[in-house]
């Protein structure tokens, strides 16, 4: 599903990733760990197709329409409501039975009552929940999550724990986290960046 050989990423003079080799099979769950600045986010952006490798090879399957990505930004329009944001992405991804799917996700992530609120009015935790809804909306085959527990309160984190257990059955997952023990029981592999 993802295969990297001697993967390198350079921003100007700075070499962020150097000669990285790893493989993530279909249905696998890979946890990426490392200190700040070790290149976790860069690696995830490369895998999502949001950045281009400077060297080595990186093969990612599936194509971008089947990838769900959760980054540091929620990637929602602040002027739109939670419902409008998901509707926009639902149209772009041509999600079948869009309204039902959006309603189900909003319910599941505890956002149904806030569906009419503009994203700018949502709390950090609610935004993270909305971002999770966005990344799951199109039922991605490959899910890439960059620090998904960031900004979530205890309830939100527990909810995400349960979601990850459920998603583990059906999806290939790549997660970066500073708390690897939290997802350790689910992981099929671990990649430590220095």
């Amino acid at each position, binding site marked *: 599903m993802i295969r990297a050989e001697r993967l390198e990423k350079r921003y100007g003079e700075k070499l962020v990733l150097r000669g990285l080799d790893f493989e993530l099979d279909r249905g696998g769950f890979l946890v990426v760990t490392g200190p700040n600045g070790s290149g976790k986010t860069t690696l995830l952006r490369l895998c999502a197709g949001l950045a281009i490798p400077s060297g080595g090879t990186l093969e990612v399957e599936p194509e*971008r*329409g089947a990838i769900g990505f959760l980054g540091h930004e929620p990637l929602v329009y602040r002027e739109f409501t939670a419902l409008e944001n998901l509707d926009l992405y639902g*149209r*772009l991804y041509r999600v079948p039975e869009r309204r039902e799917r959006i309603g189900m996700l909003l319910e599941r992530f505890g956002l149904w009552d806030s569906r009419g609120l503009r994203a700018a009015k949502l709390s950090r935790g609610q935004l993270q929940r909305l971002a999770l809804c966005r990344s799951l909306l199109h039922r991605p085959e490959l899910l890439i999550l960059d620090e998904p527990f960031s900004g979530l309160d205890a309830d939100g984190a527990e909810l995400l724990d349960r979601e990850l257990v459920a998603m583990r059955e059906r999806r290939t997952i790549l997660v970066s986290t500073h708390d690897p023990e939290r997802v350790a029981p689910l992981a099929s592999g671990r990649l430590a960046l220095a």
Partner: protein
Amino acid sequence: MRSYLADAGVLARKDLRLELRARDTLPSMLLFVLSILVVFHFALPSGSSRLAELGLLWVAIVFTSLLGLGRAFVAEREQGLLDALVLAPVDRSAIWLAKVVATLAFLVVAEVVALPAFALFFEPVGWSTVAGVALADVGICAVGTLLAAMAAAGRARELLLPLLFLPLALPIVIGGVGASVADGSGRYLGFLALYDAIFALLAWASFEYVVTE
């Protein structure tokens, strides 16, 4: 093709709705174009030539469009939303097309106010000027949207966009002024149409490379 246009339609509607909510771009464009026409009205000596007056109209249009273009990618830049659009399974040139349509809509609204204001302050505009403005708008938005995306990725974006855009807008100004004042305006209108076709095609084809990292 149908899904391509549908994607562009969804994205253009998104931009128009964002503007309806935020009201950031259009009021600024309207205020700017009216202000600049008032300034020109008092700055231009009485008895100035028609050519000078129409030249100032084109200056006003180009700088007003620059204001709109400068805000075309603000939401995407400030909130990292270009990542979300790039990740979506839509042709990346559809993002460009949607931005062109939205920016064009704002510019046309600004001109619907600006042209009567120009007539009030200076002299009525003829159909050849209106046709020139319409053709110029397409070129301005096609090229300007590509350059706005390039500038949005850079650090000195406020500086970069005018520096990139104004030299490329020069043929538009020449064609527009020519269409407004020359006896054979058809030649200049044809020139503007050719500019639109060539630069729209170039911008459409190269947008993908601009938004990919």
